[in-house]
């Protein structure tokens, strides 16, 4: 029987009730007394010199409070970057200033020039039209390779070129990799693009700044995945506000997917302006504005070569990638194409030699940073595409070529040639599970039926590995991270036994309030309803790094377990005193402390009461109270993996793809709430399949964003997607965290794009169109044109 409570139970989500009744508290639902409204006037050209800004007419309009420009921010810091990458020569990356409002030049469509503050959003918007900005438009650099050419227009005049860094990994392997490729029995080469995406959480960003002059305290309400990170970056590096005078609140947040990790100029602006005006300042982003101000994702152009020996074993991989940084460095941008991408190039395979070269490039486009998966989808896509192509070239079954090269279960822990050590995994098991769930053997029959109906059916396989549970602080510090990546939790037991857990993780759809409560309730043996999870407010939670990179249960959950263990250990001492027994003899089960081998017991609630009403209490040995904090820094990353199978039908007349089935067999280690885990996979799959089939962020040569709204950017809709078959029964628990968990948030987005593209390429080959590759998204026109090109 499935459990109905605690670890392993599909507990219904407690957060649902407020979301289903319209009583959530999202940032845009917050309105403060005497509030003003900010409207950002943004550049409509990709590159230009600002000659003048005349706001006098706007400031004279009724209801306008003030118009801010860069001159109001003299002496204020730029938006900092949180990660420094070192190039092949050992030099630090080129790091331009990222001002809150444009200083002298605009560098992308959407770069903020001025901000109008008014008594209503409508008045602010109207007045923005009266601000006269004179800009001389300059040539824009959009294409990454063109940006790297000799004599290219520079995005930043004070940098030596548009190259942020030229990174080699592992640089010492370079010659050996070159040699192995030269000597290989077979080399498969593929050039591909990982299309630029916009994360598009359904809640646009919002920021509300408030200032209390009486005590010099600032409060920022913001749509963030990590309020403590925002407090640190903005307080210490931008505005110079000490932490004890700055509170950052991220209440209910309507999805993040990475794009709400970063510290944005608008957050610093409203915080600054609230003090300058001594009134609250609110900014609500429109969707169209989000397209030109939220950090984008992906945008890599890659050449990958896979070398194989005569036995079809992989001997070497060499890649060269151009990674778009956009016009400025967003918070974690430099880490995405490097440490979150190069380290994953071994995939599930035993390839002994790997060399990854990444050129990060500034262009006159919106900054690019982490989006669901962040680097790992880019690594997986190129690897799983090139392996599939190799299988076709060698005439092998793509599943069997993978299996031949898998790291085998007895090889763990496994040191890859790209600096990471996988602790556990069983790639054959997930492959077998996916084969079982998809009736792989019956595919030929189904393909024949499709053919009879004038359609081409294809089957695509992809495997993935990801590094989650970000991250061991000492390791990432060596790799350029400018912050620690531990997580924190405080377990506060109340006098009658109920519990509040303050976590540094942040839930913006993942259901932590439910999952985390399951863990603590299970450890003590009390009802889940007795445990509340508190998050999203720097004044309530200990310093924590927030939620991204599928880290919450693996790192935040581990911190919570450590804090709960401390609480339990102390409670056992109290119980021992109450029962006049030795500490070591106390056992805790189902909320009852008992003395081993006796019938003596005392209830959890009674022990908690004794801690706060210490009339009969070992005061000489332990303090009263029952509250503990733990900070957990992981020893390693976690390594979820899985096998993703996609079955499609392609209409040869139109190139339109129908996804007939999608199966995900994942290994997430132990699972706390299966219902929530499956939901996370569904959402990841939709975003990955959206990337593969529909979504594309397109700039024209002048740097105008052509896909700037939901009219032009194809978000996946219900009828674009199939029902998913998801399975997480293959479990190799993580060996280095107390829950044995790995993380599940990004898997779907990582593994699904190559599975779909492989399926479409398979369908085309079976239909007599030997197309080698189509760049995502596989729109009907791209598929149809590719078919015509090989006719």
């Amino acid at each position, binding site marked *: 029987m*499935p459990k109905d409570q605690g670890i*392993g139970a*599909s507990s*219904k*989500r407690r957060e*649902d*009730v*407020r*979301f*289903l*009744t*319209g*009583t*959530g508290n*999202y940032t*845009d*639902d917050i*309105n403060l007394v005497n509030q003003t409204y900010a409207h950002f006037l943004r550049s409509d050209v990709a590159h230009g010199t600002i000659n003048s800004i005349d706001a006098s007419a706007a400031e004279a309009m009724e209801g306008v409070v003030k118009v801010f420009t860069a001159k109001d921010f003299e002496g204020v810091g730029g938006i900092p970057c949180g990660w420094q990458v070192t190039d092949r020569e050992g030099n630090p990356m080129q790091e331009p200033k990222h001002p809150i409002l444009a200083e002298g030049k605009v560098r992308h469509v959407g770069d903020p020039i001025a901000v109008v503050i008014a008594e209503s959003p*409508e008045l602010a918007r109207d007045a923005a039209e009266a601000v006269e900005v004179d800009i001389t438009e300059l040539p824009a650099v959009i294409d990454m390779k063109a940006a790297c050419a000799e004599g290219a227009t520079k995005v930043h005049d004070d940098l030596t070129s548009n190259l942020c860094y030229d990174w080699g990994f592992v640089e010492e392997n370079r010659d050996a990799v070159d040699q192995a490729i030269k000597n290989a029995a077979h080399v498969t080469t593929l050039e591909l693009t990982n299309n630029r995406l916009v994360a*598009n*959480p*359904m*809640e*646009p960003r919002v920021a509300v700044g408030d200032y209390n002059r009486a005590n010099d305290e600032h409060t920022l309400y913001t749509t963030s995945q990590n309020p403590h990170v925002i407090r640190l970056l903005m307080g210490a590096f931008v505005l110079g506000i000490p932490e004890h005078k700055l509170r950052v609140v991220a209440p*209910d*947040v*309507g*999805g993040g997917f990475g794009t709400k990790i970063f510290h944005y100029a608008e957050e610093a602006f409203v915080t600054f302006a609230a003090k300058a005006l001594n009134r609250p300042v609110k900014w609500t982003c*429109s*969707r*169209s504005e989000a397209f030109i101000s939220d950090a984008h994702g992906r945008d890599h152009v890659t050449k990958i070569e896979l070398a194989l020996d005569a036995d079809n074993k992989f001997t070497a991989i060499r890649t060269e990638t151009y990674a778009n940084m956009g016009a400025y460095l967003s918070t974690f941008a430099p880490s995405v194409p490097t440490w979150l991408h190069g380290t994953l190039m071994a995939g599930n395979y035993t390839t002994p030699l790997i060399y990854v070269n990444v050129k990060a490039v500034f262009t006159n486009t919106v900054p690019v940073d982490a989006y669901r998966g962040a680097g790992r989808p880019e690594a997986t896509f190129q690897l799983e595409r090139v392996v599939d192509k190799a299988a076709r070239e060698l005439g092998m079954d793509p599943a069997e070529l993978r299996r031949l090269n898998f790291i085998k279960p007895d090889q763990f822990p496994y040191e890859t040639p790209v600096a990471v050590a996988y602790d556990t995994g069983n790639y054959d098991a997930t492959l077998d599970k996916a084969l079982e769930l998809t009736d792989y053997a019956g595919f030929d029959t189904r393909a024949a039926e499709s053919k009879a109906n004038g359609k081409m059916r294809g089957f695509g396989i992809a495997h993935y590995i990801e590094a989650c549970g970000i991250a061991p602080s000492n390791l990432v510090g060596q790799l350029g991270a400018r912050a620690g990546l531990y997580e924190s939790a405080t377990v506060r037991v109340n006098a009658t036994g109920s519990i509040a857990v303050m976590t540094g993780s942040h839930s*913006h*759809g*993942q*259901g932590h309030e439910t999952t985390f409560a399951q863990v603590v309730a299970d450890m003590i043996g009390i009802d889940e309803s007795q445990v509340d999870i508190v998050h999203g407010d720097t004044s309530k939670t200990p310093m924590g790094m927030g939620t991204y990179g599928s880290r919450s249960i693996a790192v935040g959950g581990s911190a919570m377990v450590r804090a709960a263990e401390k609480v339990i250990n102390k409670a056992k001492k109290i119980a021992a005193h109450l029962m006049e027994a030795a500490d070591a003899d106390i056992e805790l089960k189902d909320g009852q402390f008992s003395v081993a081998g006796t019938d003596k017991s005392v209830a959890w609630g009674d022990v908690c009461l004794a801690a706060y009403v210490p009339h009969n209490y070992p005061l000489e040995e332990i303090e009263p109270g029952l509250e503990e904090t733990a900070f957990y820094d992981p020893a390693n990353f976690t390594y979820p993996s899985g096998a993703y199978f996609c079955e499609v039908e392609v209409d040869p007349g139109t190139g339109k793809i129908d996804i007939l089935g999608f199966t995900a067999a994942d290994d997430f280690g132990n699972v706390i709430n*299966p*219902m*929530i*885990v*499956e*939901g996370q996979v*569904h*959402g*990841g*799959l*939709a*975003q990955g399949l959206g990337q593969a089939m529909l979504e594309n962020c397109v700039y024209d040569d002048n740097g105008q964003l052509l896909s700037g*709204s*939901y*009219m032009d950017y194809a*978000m*996946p*809709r*219900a*009828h674009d*997607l199939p*029902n*998913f078959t998801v*399975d997480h029964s293959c479990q190799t628990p993580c060996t280095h965290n107390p829950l044995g968990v790995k993380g599940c948030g990004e898997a*779907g987005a990582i593994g699904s794009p190559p599975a779909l593209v492989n399926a479409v390429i398979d369908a085309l080959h079976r239909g007599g169109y030997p197309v080698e590759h189509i760049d995502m998204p596989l729109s009907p026109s791209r598929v149809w044109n590719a078919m015509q090109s090989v006719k």
Partner: protein
Amino acid sequence: MTEVKMTVNGRAVSGDAEGRTLLSTFLRETLGMTGTHVGCDTSQCGACVVHVNGNAVKSCTMFAHEAAGAEVATIEGQAAPDGTLNKIQQAFQDYHGLQCGFCTPGMVMSAAALLKENPQPTEAEVRDYLEGNICRCTGYHNIVRAIMAASGQEVPAVAAE
């Protein structure tokens, strides 16, 4: 600004609105009913769906004054007065049909409109009907299951264990 009066979830309400004030803005800002969400500015996302005189409407496509005298129903009025969720809301919780909750008000209101006109929709009909509601979290899988379950049709239990 002129006064506009309407009925929202059975309660007579009024407030000042400009000619250009959208119904979604009127609900959120003037009436303080923030359950209705705004996720885009091109009438694509459907987070703002409410019912006006019994029809599902994207409240960002309608001026507040156009709703003068109308019966408007929003997400805040869907549960019973004692807080008991209606069958669609309950199915969304039972089948994990929501994650971040931002699209949820529009999804629930669209689902209610669908089941009113088609009490036993097929899965394909549910997916087609949701054309105007975007969800970025769930991949729609569990939303579709929730709506099928709310219509009284057999749907496998959540999370195979």
